[in-house]
């Protein structure tokens, strides 16, 4: 049978606030256990939550960026369950009235077409603490530093139809929250994690199949693999006459499979109700307008501008705007280079990205900054060095040998543009290769390349290619 895959993603983005969502404790990552867990985070008697304006601002910013409705009135609710890393016995979340409802995100598919993915809602909530199960004499260690960290849970419509689409959506969202500077996107530290709802149905059927929820996927690769595995598992099950259970499953990256999670709580009976400790969140029009004014240029708009203003191909513009940092780097380089957007694009996507990949570095940590790279491109543009020599200079810059100017001078890489000097080199090469000279003059035009190569070799790659070509043609011409 021909099966169709249906996927919806729930993404938890940790908001980049300084303090927690309901307390003044720090959210900084990596502190000593429980040194950033205050009385509110611990749920001690008599404490009251006070909502962080920064978290609200970020949620609104997200809502505006995905064309959603920002609720002028939203309500916080208690989600009740018992677990040791949740000290109050409930998580403060939003249920019936979330702060953001109904938006969308456009993703690009492999065939180059665009697909619009619906965003059902995004709501504010607090994170739980961390349980450490290893090595405490059979006990569990609890670190509550993370308890109360603000999260934005972003729920998509079941619009995704393949693991690839799910990853494309997740990457787009990841880029967006970083463009908006509302989440650092650090997946290793758990700042951006994903639960996937996966089901299959016979193609053409309008109702959804029973879904399984895969929890806590914290890398793009795991999302793709886990969904792939889950789809195959469900199809195999259905084709052999079985039925899919609605359940929560965990992905085991070592074994590359999903398996059912032992139930934390019978049938997810969370007994939501409005939190009496928190009043409804009411947003004034002026507040929303104020946030709107802080929206940066978004990835799609920036990509369109790159193709329009810089004449880049949609592919190149897509690569360069994939992250805000990369796009900023490119534009700074271009400014420093003083023009030639396509050459700058080739360098950023070629030499620079290659070197970054090799060193596993983020673009913000590049040893060659945009100013320095722009300076190098300037030397190519003004004819001081050829593009080929520039690669050597770039390597030296990467190794920390200074700026382009200094390296060119120190290594004597300045291009030879003195016609007399190039002519002498040509004469030398012609004298050493009489057979090839005769061959060329007898009509073997292709030998021109041989001469170019030879002269370049003796010049150490420094002869100006344009001048060299012209001189060679003149001197080799049959007489």
């Amino acid at each position, binding site marked *: 049978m021909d099966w169709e895959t249906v996927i919806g993603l729930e993404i938890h983005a940790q908001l980049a606030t300084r*303090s927690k969502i309901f307390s*003044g404790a720090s959210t900084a990552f990596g502190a000593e256990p*429980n040194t950033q867990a205050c009385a509110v985070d611990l749920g001690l008697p008599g404490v009251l939550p006070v909502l962080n*304006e920064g*978290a609200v601002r970020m949620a609104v910013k997200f809502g505006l960026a995905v064309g959603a409705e920002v609720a002028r009135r939203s309500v916080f609710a208690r989600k009740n369950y018992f677990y040791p890393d949740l000290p109050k016995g409930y998580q403060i979340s939003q249920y019936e009235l979330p702060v953001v409802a109904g938006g969308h995100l456009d993703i690009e598919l492999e065939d180059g077409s665009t697909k619009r993915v619906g965003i059902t809602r995004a709501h504010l909530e607090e994170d739980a603490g961390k349980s450490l199960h290893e090595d405490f004499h059979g006990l*569990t*260690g609890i670190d509550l530093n993370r308890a109360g960290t603000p999260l934005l849970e972003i729920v998509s419509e079941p619009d995704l139809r393949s693991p690839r689409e799910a990853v494309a959506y997740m990457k787009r969202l990841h880029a967006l929250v970083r463009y908006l500077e509302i989440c650092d996107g650090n997946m290793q530290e758990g700042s951006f994690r994903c639960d996937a709802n996966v089901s299959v149905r016979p193609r053409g059927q309008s109702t959804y199949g029973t879904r399984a929820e895969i929890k806590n996927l914290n890398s793009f690769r795991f999302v793709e693999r886990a969904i792939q595995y889950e789809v195959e598992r469900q199809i195999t099950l259905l084709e052999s006459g079985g039925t899919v259970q609605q359940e929560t499953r965990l992905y085991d990256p070592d074994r590359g499979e999903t398996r059912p999670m032992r139930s*934390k709580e019978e049938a997810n009976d969370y007994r939501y109700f409005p939190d009496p400790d928190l*009043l*409804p969140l009411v947003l004034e029009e002026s507040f929303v307008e104020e946030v709107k004014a802080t929206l940066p240029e978004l990835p799609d708009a920036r990509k369109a501008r790159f193709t329009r203003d810089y004449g880049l191909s949609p592919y190149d513009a897509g690569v360069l705007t994939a992250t805000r940092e990369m796009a900023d780097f490119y534009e700074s380089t271009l400014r420093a280079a003083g023009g030639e957007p396509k050459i700058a694009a080739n360098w950023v996507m070629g030499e620079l990205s290659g070197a970054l990949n090799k060193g596993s570095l983020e673009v913000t940590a590049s040893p060659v900054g945009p100013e320095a790279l722009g300076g190098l491109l300037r030397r190519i543009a003004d004819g001081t060095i050829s593009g080929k020599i520039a690669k050597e200079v770039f390597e030296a810059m990467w190794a920390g040998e200074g700026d382009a100017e200094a390296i060119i001078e120190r290594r004597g890489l300045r291009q030879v543009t003195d016609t007399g000097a190039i002519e002498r080199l040509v004469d030398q090469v012609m004298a050493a290769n009489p057979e090839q000279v005769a061959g060329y003059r007898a009509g073997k035009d292709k030998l021109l390349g041989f001469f170019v190569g030879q002269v370049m070799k003796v010049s150490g790659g420094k002869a100006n290619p344009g001048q060299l070509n012209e001189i060679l043609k003149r001197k080799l011409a049959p007489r």
Partner: protein
Amino acid sequence: MPLSGKDVENIAHLARLALAEEDIPRYVRELSSILNLVEQLQRVDTEGVPPMAHPLDAHQRLRPDAVTETDQRELFQSTAPLTEAGLYLVPRVIE
């Protein structure tokens, strides 16, 4: 809407309350009478009345995003039954 003994057991389990077997009929009776009251309330026509999220007619005040708390781990952990390496220790919970 009368509750069954099983409902009460389930509610008690969700709330992590241990009930003595002989107390269950009493809880069934008392909780059922609360639900009867709710049922009575639900008969009121609320067409056009917006749902109330809080009895106070006020809205949430916001706090500036600033760190105002200092580390008081030692004080907080002085009341904890068991701690080690800065962690609270609890009976093992396995996923």
